[in-house]
């Protein structure tokens, strides 16, 4: 069973989705919940069976698909991908479980199960073409979710989402094919295995071009400024479940791919582009926070704040040291939980009032106390309050970048603190004061179906904020091997100096232990 547990995780939801066509529509949701619970249990078992002392890939499977062209079905996970996979199956589970009465619910459940296959596939794939297959396939279910269940502008939003990502990933595909060609030049055989590519040391100019090609694909997905314009539309129009999955899991594909592809394959280019990317990341943090402040629509506030926090993840990733990358991986999980929960919460109020305008609300805390409490906790987590999940990740990311540049870190850190203003002010407008709108006076508080999704998220947000060690340890050991590889592979003096060698890391490791 353990030999094929990743294939099981990837294809179980897909097979279940195909079988789902037979299930009657009134039982579709129950079927979806059952399947996703099984999937989640399997993913927890994966964590249980995961050997935290091993920093490399585990549970690897390798089947030749196109040996003439070096394409294999090669999957495996390490500490970096393990928790994102668990998060993906967790969000699919609570997402399906908390679905309300929607039209065509059977189609939605089937689509979500297909989406789950592609999400797990992306994070488990270790072959570039296999990665690309899942990466592209994930667009189709999301396109359908936004386009069929979205708001009035849904078609525009879904097409924009699809075309942006599709264009970017085609450029990335050219980069992948070029990388395979270079590997073929060096060794005489075709291979798309990422692990084989890691062993290839490239001259700087190739690294720069390939880094740029991959960057376009990943940056659009993240989305990094200035490619972020598709995301507010997608979030604005998507149904609640679509926004939740998009924010919690799909966006992580981009940041995860930076760590899986760009950093270990092109360490010198990563060091070369470190400051330009840091500038973009800081612009992202500050600019989107300002845009969020100007929004009238509560969902747009959450959407822009989500982009803003993605900036911190990028900053941590491009710190190129163990603290920064560990922090950014941890922040991916934290961001997933927090922004996923916030989109759930926006969905709750939208279901009741069918509007997301903040001016329509006010004084909700007195009408819906439980709702206001959970929203408050999640909002605090989002702004990075200590003892909540995002704080750990943000702190480590900034600590990592502090080693590279004090000023940039200071700017980013201040921006995060200032960013709290817009969250607090929109919270104040929606929840405190008198109940101004009569329509709000009789709103029912969160019901048990919604609590089913929100309570676990709140517990996790607090748990990981207080005691992040179970996650940080495996992440840390895998990140260490990535950084070690990068340092060994770096050929330029800039790369060697920016990427620390791990012998000098002993001191910072102890300081990390203090953080934990």
């Amino acid at each position, binding site marked *: 069973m353990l030999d094929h547990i990743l294939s099981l995780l990837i294809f179980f939801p897909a097979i279940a989705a195909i079988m789902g066509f037979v299930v009657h529509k009134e039982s579709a949701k129950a079927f979806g919940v059952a399947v996703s619970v099984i999937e989640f249990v399997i993913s927890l078992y994966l964590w249980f069976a995961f050997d935290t002392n091993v920093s490399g890939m585990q549970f690897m499977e390798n089947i*030749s*698909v*196109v*040996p*003439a*062209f070096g394409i294999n079905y090669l999957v495996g996970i390490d500490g970096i991908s393990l928790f994102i996979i668990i998060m993906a199956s967790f969000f699919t589970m609570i997402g399906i479980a908390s679905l309300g009465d929607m039209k065509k619910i059977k189609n939605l459940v089937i689509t979500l199960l297909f989406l789950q296959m592609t999400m797990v596939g992306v994070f488990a794939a270790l072959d570039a*073409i296999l990665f*690309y*297959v899942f990466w*592209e*396939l994930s*667009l*189709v279910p999301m*396109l*359908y979710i936004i*386009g*069929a269940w979205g708001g009035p502008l*849904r*078609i525009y939003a*879904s*097409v924009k989402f*699809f*075309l942006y990502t*599709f*264009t970017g990933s*085609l*450029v990335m*595909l*050219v980069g992948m*094919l*070029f990388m*395979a*060609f270079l590997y*073929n030049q060096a060794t005489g055989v075709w291979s798309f295995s990422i692990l084989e590519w890691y062993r290839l040391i490239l001259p700087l100019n190739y690294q720069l071009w390939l880094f740029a090609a991959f960057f376009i694909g990943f940056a659009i997905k993240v989305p990094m400024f200035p490619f972020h314009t598709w995301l507010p539309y997608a979030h604005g129009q998507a149904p609640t479940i679509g926004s939740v999955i998009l924010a919690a899991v799909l966006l992580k594909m981009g940041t995860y791919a930076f760590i899986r592809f760009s950093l270990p394959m092109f360490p010198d280019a990563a060091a070369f582009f470190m400051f330009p990317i840091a500038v973009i990341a800081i612009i992202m943090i500050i600019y989107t926070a300002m845009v969020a402040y100007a929004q009238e629509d509560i969902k747009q506030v959450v959407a822009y704040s989500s982009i803003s926090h993605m900036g911190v993840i990028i900053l941590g990733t491009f710190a190129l040291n163990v603290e920064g990358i560990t922090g950014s991986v941890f922040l991916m999980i934290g961001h997933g939980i927090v922004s996923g929960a916030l989109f759930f919460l926006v969905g709750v109020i939208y279901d009741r009032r069918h509007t997301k305008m903040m001016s329509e609300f006010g004084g909700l805390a007195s009408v819906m106390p439980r709702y206001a409490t959970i929203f408050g906790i999640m909002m605090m987590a989002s702004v990075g309050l200590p003892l909540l999940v995002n704080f750990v990740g943000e702190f480590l990311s900034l600590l990592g970048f502090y080693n590279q540049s004090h000023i940039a870190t200071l700017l980013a850190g201040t921006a995060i603190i200032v960013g709290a203003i817009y969250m607090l002010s929109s919270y104040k407008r929606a929840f405190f004061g008198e109940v101004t709108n009569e329509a709000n006076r009789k709103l029912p508080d969160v019901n048990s179906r919604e609590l089913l999704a929100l309570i676990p998220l709140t517990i996790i947000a607090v748990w990981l904020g207080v005691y992040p060690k179970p996650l940080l340890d495996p992440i840390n050991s895998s990140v260490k091997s990535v950084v070690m590889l990068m340092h060994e592979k770096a050929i330029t003096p800039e790369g060697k100096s920016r990427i620390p060698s791990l012998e000098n890391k002993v001191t910072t490791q102890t300081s990390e232990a203090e953080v934990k």
Partner: protein
Amino acid sequence: MLSHVNISLESLNIATLVPMLIPIVGALFILVLDLFKKDQRKSMYVMLSLLFVMLDFGSLIDSSIDFNTNGTILGYFDMMLVDGLALLGQFIIVGASILFIPLALTSKRFHEFSYPEFFALFLFMISGFQFMVATDNLILIFIGLEMASLALYTLIALHNRSKSFEAAVKYFTMGALAAGFFAFGSMVLYALTGSVEIHQMAAVFNADEFANLPFILVGVVFLLAALGFKVSLVPFHTWAPDVYEGASASMAGYMSIVPKIAGFVVVMRMFEFLIHSGVVWLNVVLYAIVIVTMTAANIWALVQSDVKRMLAYSSISHAGFVMAAILIGTTQANSALFLYWILFTFTNLGAFSMLWISRQKNLAAGQSSDHSYNKFAGLIKVAPISATIMALFMLSLAGLPPFALFWGKIYMISAAVSSGYVVLALIMALNSAIAGYYYLKLIIYMFMKEPEIDIESKVYTMNSSVSLRTIIGIAAVGTVFASIVVNPLIEFITAFVYNSGY
């Protein structure tokens, strides 16, 4: 006094002609049968033609086994040239024909299939295309081309709609012009080299190091224009959308595959030595044609309001994409061309068959053309299976993994990258992104819009019959499970292309 000419039957190597003779015999047989016993049902003719075409396919398998052991075979005064290219081309031609013929068995009656001549002409056409690819003699290529084209003009006109006549006449006029170009181009090259065989021309040119370059270029340009008409390269593509619109959907699908692969094989034979001759001007011309064909056709396809016209422009764009292989000119690129076209056969024939299955006799109110986009609005509600299968073909055409055309695309782009055409590879990738939009448009109409015009739901499967569903099923299975067959296909094709020296 003429001296005796001694020709032994062995030296003629009649076996090389067998694959072409089978459909000719079949066509004559059908005509003779019609003389003796009139008014037979079309199903009989369909099955009879299918039998002959399958026999043809069997003889091709036989020749390819022969090719694997003995290498390239010459025959019939060295006019016939059975190499890997010829065999691969014929496999696609005959294979696509096998998939096409059962599409005649619609549940509604159509005028053209009631004539036995339709099937006779169809078999003659197959034979013509087979001659075209299995020789490097320009005269025989010309004969094969005209034999096939004249039959094809008639087949289009037989569809008996006002637009069909327009289409046939348009295609005929353009085809006549192309024939003139071809004859003129061959004449110039013959005058320069004293031979009509491409490999001998290459030998002469290489021996005197392209001494008469201006004349060579004139000849080559005329030939390129003539073949450009056949494979619909911009700016010689203008007939394509109108002809596709006028022809029946199944015939349009067939035209987007078979005549083009025949054309590509000839172009490949022609340009193999020219590309490697070091004449920069030729590479530039070809480069420009490839990019303009891909990009312009994509942009025109964006603004179409009819699915069939969109598919017409899309197949022009695919032709431009594949033409890049000729420009790159490596073994990998040439193999990629065949791989791409085999996968394209399944997907594109499937897409056109889905249009064919929903062909109406009369347009509904508010419907501007036979296959306008709004006809398919909200299809997921009335015919979910049709909508899903159609979406599958669209995703494959867009190059979404893991469907069929994705594998063709990556192998082709990889060929470009591997021979230093990185800019070309990027343009190819970006064109795939543009193309994504118009394929997506149909999916959006089918899955996300509400029905716009009042059409009975049975229209969407109006022509459905067991044989049509079988063909669509085969196309869909080929599209979805392509990833399993890609490896044997690549190995098979590469061996054939490599052993023919391309």
